[in-house]
């Protein structure tokens, strides 16, 4: 089965890691491909935290805005590409289907990418999307590098990428915030987004 069709057609949340890796990741000499064509690479989590630290030295607090804006744009490109490809192949992309695709994406990040252990909630009544992440790689990278707690949430890439992904899938602007962060001493990281109508 085509990996994209698998991503958008089935509920992947209960699938085991081996099956997801078999479908979504293709390992070749010198590279790993996601969905058959997107190159992936594993990096030390401390490496990313180190880049943030160096950027802060140069531009101060504005580093957060830069990382967030870049990640949000990256997420948006991914979300809108999925939306367009889905619409071309299957027609209308419903709200329920968007939520299912987002849950599937998050399951893949959780089980194949090592970005953290994710939990996803969509509060239809309050139009809120809540994503909880245990063992966020960004927070863990910060803790490992700095060996101390942060005063502020540090998962800028995850916050921005998930934010942009939803905006791309829903094709609308949303607001978002990291409300809790492992690096700050919380049990897990919590991202909250106001979903559009």
């Amino acid at each position, binding site marked *: 089965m085509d990996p994209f069709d698998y991503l958008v057609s089935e509920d992947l949340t209960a699938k085991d890691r081996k099956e997801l890796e078999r479908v979504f990741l293709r390992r070749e000499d010198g590279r790993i491909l996601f969905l058959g064509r997107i190159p992936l690479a594993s990096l030390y989590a401390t490496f990313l935290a180190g880049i943030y630290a160096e950027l802060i*030295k*140069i*531009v*101060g*607090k*504005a*580093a*957060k*805005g*830069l990382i*967030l*804006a870049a990640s*949000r*744009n990256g997420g948006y490109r991914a979300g809108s590409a999925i939306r367009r490809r889905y619409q071309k192949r299957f027609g209308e992309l419903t709200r329920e289907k968007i939520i299912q695709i987002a849950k599937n994406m998050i399951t893949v990040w959780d089980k194949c990418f090592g970005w953290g252990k994710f939990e996803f909630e969509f509060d239809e009544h309050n139009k809120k999307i809540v994503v909880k992440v245990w063992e966020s790689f960004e927070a863990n990278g910060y803790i490992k590098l700095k060996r101390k707690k942060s005063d502020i949430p540090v998962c800028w890439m995850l916050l921005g990428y998930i934010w942009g992904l939803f905006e791309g899938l829903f094709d609308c602007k949303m607001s978002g915030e990291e409300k809790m962060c492992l690096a700050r001493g919380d049990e897990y990281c919590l991202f909250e987004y106001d979903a559009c109508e």
Partner: protein
Amino acid sequence: MASLREQLEKILKDLKTAGDIEASAIVSRDGLLIAADISQNVNAEAFAAMTATMLGAAETATSELGKGIPDRVIVEGREGKIIATGAGPKALLVVMTNPRANLGLVLLEMGKASEKIKELLG
């Protein structure tokens, strides 16, 4: 009673009436957009991040050189000017002007607006 956002947007709207100002934004020190009066075809979030970065980098440079904290950053181009200035400890005020803008007048109006923003945001 107007909400905080509405009050901030009114400050930006009033600023525009001073003339020469084409767009403006209130941005948090960490580069997030708080309020904007900006054209739809500009990515306001990216603009916010870029302008906070400009001021942040200028602060680092002047501090490293022992010249204290800059009051503002002014970027002049053929098509216009971008001016970023602090508006209290939490925010920045950024404006884009046309190339013929009266800089003295714009800075004066920005100073007044920054004080109002500082009162509102702390």
